[in-house]
């Protein structure tokens, strides 16, 4: 190995030095607030009850239980781990199994690369732009480099703020990773990462701020009084609609429509599906921000919708082509999970079953019947499942949200469907426009696609210098 090759390493030393300073600065304890009076026994008991009930502590006294509460904190750590599991390896396998063998690693690398990139952005500015006080469209810079994000609860009453920040990070990771499904097998790795980096600033951070960070669409508090329990608009619609635009700008795979491109491993795809389902409990029930009754509802509806949608999709296949397939059952699972996401903590089990049936029906028609009519190459159906399912879910949330299930619905129920439509429209416009601009700019500059030879050889070799499987018994 040529020692000259080591030179580029030096470019890393400067940022390291900067960061060491910044890290040390962080180590200083935060300034203490003015001392509050001690609580009396009744207040102490009330605080303990607040823990069970996931409500606020007694105001204006120095709570004896100011720290995070173990049950809620533990559940949110578990949920965060589950949502990370959705991407690594869940989504990577779900998508990776659906591409041809020569591109399996490219999907895995994209998921891994996005995880690293988004984490760095989130720590540096993303969390702050999403959750620090700002205007209706974007948050402020109070929490850049996780400043002030420590183990004390802040946003959620009984959960450490750093756990909340990581929980939200796992959402920020999976959202752009979903886009990968539409552009699989034909986009340069460098272009994927650059696209995602820009897209986070243009779409994700603003949208997450608007919906969950107290911005434009933050339920009762926002100008658009829409609700989104776990990310129907922020996660699934944003990624799904962006995926459509990006895959249109990118163009179809070489040979698309002529050569068959069957999934190289439905086994991997099914493993990924199981992991997505299990991980989704963190996504949906974790979005309650506590191990409380709302989480319990979300847990229940998530299970029902996923299972019912899966069975519905399989049944529709059986009725229309005499075969219920593994890919069908898996597609149904994911569609059910997507549709229930915005509604999970707002609706009854019965509504979840109905939503599951519709989740099996509508994306099925889209992916299986309509897509071929339009002829765009959404390789792994990110649009057909996430955009269509996310939009459907956001609508149905407007119909089925019930204040008997979740008191938070009380303030917004009137006229909710219209507000949901506004949120849907806003999300689509933002995603489509921003993606078109970013993708267009990248196409004009660095280019989006590999060479024809690289695409034919497969991205695993051309972009990553590796092969997914080496099964010959040569040595």
């Amino acid at each position, binding site marked *: 190995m040529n020692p000259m090759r080591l030179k580029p390493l030096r470019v890393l030393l400067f940022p390291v030095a900067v960061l060491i300073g910044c890290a040390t600065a962080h180590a200083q304890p935060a300034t203490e607030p003015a001392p509050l009076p001690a609580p009396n026994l009744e207040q102490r008991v009330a605080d303990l009850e607040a823990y069970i009930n996931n409500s606020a502590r007694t105001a204006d006294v120095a709570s004896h239980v100011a720290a995070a509460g173990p049950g809620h904190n533990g559940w949110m750590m578990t949920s965060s781990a589950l949502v990370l599991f959705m991407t690594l390896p869940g989504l990577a396998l779900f998508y990776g199994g659906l591409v041809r063998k020569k591109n399996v690693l490219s999907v895995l690398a994209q998921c891994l690369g996005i995880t690293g990139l988004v984490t760095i952005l989130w720590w540096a500015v993303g969390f702050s732009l999403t959750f620090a006080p700002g205007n209706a469209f974007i948050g402020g810079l109070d929490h850049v480099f996780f400043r002030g994000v420590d183990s004390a609860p802040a946003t959620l009453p009984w959960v450490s703020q750093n756990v909340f920040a990581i929980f939200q990070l796992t959402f920020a990771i999976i959202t752009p990773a979903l886009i990968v499904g539409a552009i699989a097998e034909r986009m340069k790795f460098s272009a994927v990462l650059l696209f995602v980096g820009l897209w986070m600033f243009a779409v994700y951070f603003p949208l997450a701020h608007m919906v969950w960070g107290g911005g434009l669409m933050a339920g009762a508090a926002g100008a658009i009084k829409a609700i989104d329990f776990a990310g129907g608009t922020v996660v699934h619609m944003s990624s799904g609609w962006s995926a459509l635009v990006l895959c249109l700008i990118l163009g179809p795979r070489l040979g698309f429509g002529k050569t*068959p*491109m*069957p*999934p190289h491993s439905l086994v991997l795809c099914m493993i990924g599906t199981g992991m997505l389902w299990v991980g989704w409990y963190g996504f949906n029930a974790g979005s309650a921000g506590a191990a409380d009754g709302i989480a319990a509802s979300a847990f229940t509806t998530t299970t029902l919708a996923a299972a019912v949608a899966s069975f519905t999709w399989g049944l529709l296949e059986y009725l229309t*082509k005499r*075969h219920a*397939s593994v*890919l*069908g059952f898996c*597609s149904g699972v994911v569609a059910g999970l997507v549709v229930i996401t915005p509604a999970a903590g707002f609706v009854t089990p019965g509504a979840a079953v109905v939503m599951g049936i519709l989740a099996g029906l509508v994306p099925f028609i889209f*992916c*299986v*019947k309509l*897509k*071929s009519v339009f002829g765009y190459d959404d390789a792994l*159906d990110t649009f*057909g499942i996430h955009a269509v399912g996310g939009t459907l879910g956001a609508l149905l949330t407007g119909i089925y949200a019930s204040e008997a299930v979740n008191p938070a619905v009380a303030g917004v129920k009137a006229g909710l469907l219209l507000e949901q439509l506004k949120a849907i429209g806003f999300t689509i416009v933002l995603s489509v426009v921003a993606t078109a601009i970013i993708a267009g700019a990248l196409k004009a500059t660095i280019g989006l696609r590999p060479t024809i030879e690289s695409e034919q050889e497969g991205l695993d070799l051309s972009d990553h210098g590796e092969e997914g499987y080496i099964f010959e018994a040569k040595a």
Partner: protein
Amino acid sequence: MKLIRAIIKPFKLEEVKSALADTGIDGMTITEVKGFGRQKGHTEIYRGSEYTVDFLPKVKIEVIVTDEKVGPVIDAVVAAARTGKIGDGKIFVLPLDEVIRIRTDERGETAL
């Protein structure tokens, strides 16, 4: 000597192997191949996009035999591999100039 190659249905391999053994053949080489012919393939559908598979899995058996065994070997393979359904496969006989056993450098029939 001749090179006999038989393309057969995979699940017939064990039977053909025994039949060959009965004719005194104690060496062969097999390869997984795909065959295209009169036997129809199947259609796989993945989320609406159809994928017609007309190459069917077959096993290719290659065996070198002395000239006098050509007849018996062909008969043995035909008998063992036949199901009577389309796609049972073919046998090809090719001329052969020489055989060498790598281990001993023996040549010709003693190398078999």
